């Protein structure tokens, strides 16, 4: 199979299936062979489901023959290994769950299955979506296809690596402080953290209830729109799930950015940002201006306190893991264990103050989004770091450009906007009003169509 097919998008694959130029079974077999060839160096997959994938592909082929028009029919995907999959091992990247095979599946997994996707397997996550795999861990860490000595980002590390390497067409991710957008940025792909409550988290392991989001990852904005369409919607099994109707994310995708007001928050997001990321970001703004958007600077003063989000994350994560941490601490990776235990050291007053700061950030951001339609920032201040840096246990938890949008719950997209001199991807972050995923996707799609960053391929 050519690279062209490995990197084909959802619309293209669907069209070729329907013209009988390609079959889901052939594409699935080819991708399984590609995974066998490339994954020993990438470590993106933790469980390959070849038999299941071929069964799914045959079912998709039969449905296509009967004229079934579902857009995700025969589309090869993988799930982050904190999404429960019925009958398929789910590890959360941890030794704690051992060989656990759930007898239930997450709502998002079910919805993609019912949409006709082909499940190639489960992809590695940082341990419980919070702790990077250090050498000696149960599972080796996924590697960045653009440079194997660099991290692919996390915690949806396998999703990012598999997409960048052309091993899957779509993947699920979860995002508590940037775990969809970080891997998207570092791997040169696209990730969408939808509005809090837009995509069900039922059957996805918890890290921090009030910050956790689930969403799609893909290589293009359009593919993210297709994947979101199939997973969004109310789910009574997730208490945070919104009853608001789901829009048509494809219908408005090509409307362009004429008249769209883009705000650039000049405080917080540019502290410590590499010069080449600043340059790529400003080039991206110029492109959006040229396409008809109105770009202006804005300020959200309370963001200076955004790093307090970590108090919320750690306190909630400790509450979730407390019993296992007290009874079976040896089953956690060492650095993750200490990160989780730090949550026990946060006082009730400090947690409450962090939530009050969060409320203030939400209020100011909502006010700003009355004046502009979308906020644009660099997704990360630096490109992917090397493993040598990431494996320094004293690194801590760096201040994040992504966490403010977990605090506010706003729909936020990360997409490629350039490359560093060393050949690593750079990323643009776009955030919109609650439940206005369609606007964010539309701006991202317009930018993507005007540039070619998303068409570059890593040297795998």
């Amino acid at each position, binding site marked *: 199979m050519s690279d062209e097919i490995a990197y084909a998008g959802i619309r293209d694959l669907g069209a070729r299936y329907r013209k009988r130029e390609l079959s889901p079974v052939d594409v699935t077999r080819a991708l399984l062979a590609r995974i066998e060839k490339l994954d020993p160096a990438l470590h993106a997959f933790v469980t390959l489901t070849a038999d299941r994938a071929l069964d799914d592909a045959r079912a998709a082929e039969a449905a296509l023959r009967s004229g079934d028009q579902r857009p995700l029919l025969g589309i090869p995907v993988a799930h982050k290994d904190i999404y429960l999959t019925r009958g398929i091992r789910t590890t959360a990247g941890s030794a704690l769950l051992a060989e656990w095979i759930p007898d239930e599946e997450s709502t998002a997994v079910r919805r993609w299955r019912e949409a006709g996707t082909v499940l190639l397997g489960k992809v590695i996550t940082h341990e419980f979506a919070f702790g990077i795999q250090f050498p000696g861990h149960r599972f080796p860490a996924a590697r960045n296809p653009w440079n194997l000595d660099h991290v692919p980002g996390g915690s949806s590390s396998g999703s990012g690596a598999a997409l960048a390497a052309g091993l899957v067409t779509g993947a699920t991710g979860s995002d508590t402080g940037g775990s969809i957008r970080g891997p998207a940025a570092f791997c040169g792909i696209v990730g969408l953290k939808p509005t809090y409550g837009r995509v069900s988290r039922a059957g996805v392991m918890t890290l921090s209830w009030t910050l956790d989001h689930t969403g799609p990852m893909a290589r293009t904005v359009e593919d993210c729109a297709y994947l979101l369409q199939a997973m969004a919607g109310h789910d009574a099994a997730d208490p945070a799930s919104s009853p608001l109707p789901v829009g048509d994310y494809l219908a408005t995708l090509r409307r362009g950015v004429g008249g769209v007001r883009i705000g650039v928050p000049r405080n917080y997001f540019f502290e410590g940002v590499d010069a080449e990321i600043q340059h790529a970001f400003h080039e991206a703004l110029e492109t959006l201006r040229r396409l008809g958007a109105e770009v202006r600077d804005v300020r959200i003063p309370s963001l200076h306190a955004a*790093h307090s989000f970590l108090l919320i994350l750690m306190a909630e994560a400790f509450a979730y893991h407390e019993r296992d941490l007290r009874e079976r601490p040896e089953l956690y990776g*060492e650095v993750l264990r*200490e990160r989780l235990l730090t949550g026990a*050291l946060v006082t009730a007053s400090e947690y409450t103050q962090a939530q*009050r*700061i969060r409320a203030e950030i939400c209020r100011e951001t909502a006010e700003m989004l009355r004046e502009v339609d979308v906020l644009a920032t660099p997704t990360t201040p630096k490109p992917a770091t090397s493993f040598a840096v990431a494996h320094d246990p004293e690194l801590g938890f760096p201040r994040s450009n992504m966490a403010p949008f977990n605090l506010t719950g706003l729909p936020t997209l990360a997409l490629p906007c350039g490359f560093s001199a060393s050949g690593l991807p750079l990323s643009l972050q776009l955030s919109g009003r609650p439940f206005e995923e369609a606007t964010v996707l539309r701006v991202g799609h317009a930018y993507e169509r005007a540039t070619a960053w998303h068409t570059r391929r890593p040297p795998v």
Partner: protein
Amino acid sequence: MADPHELTLDELRERIRVAGITIAEHRLAMVRKLLADALAPVRALDSRAIRPVEPAVKFVLESEGRGGE
């Protein structure tokens, strides 16, 4: 005079004792940095300056725009 915003090692040890947990000695520096960085904005906060904007309870009627499943 000690910086009131600083998280001292003694304070960290006291928090660990009160929480009833064990953290290996060679990880204390990491935990101290993690917690101190996260606490910094809260410690710099004038808690009286923030308005209580979070509602205790928020009701949404079932009939209001329910869609999907």
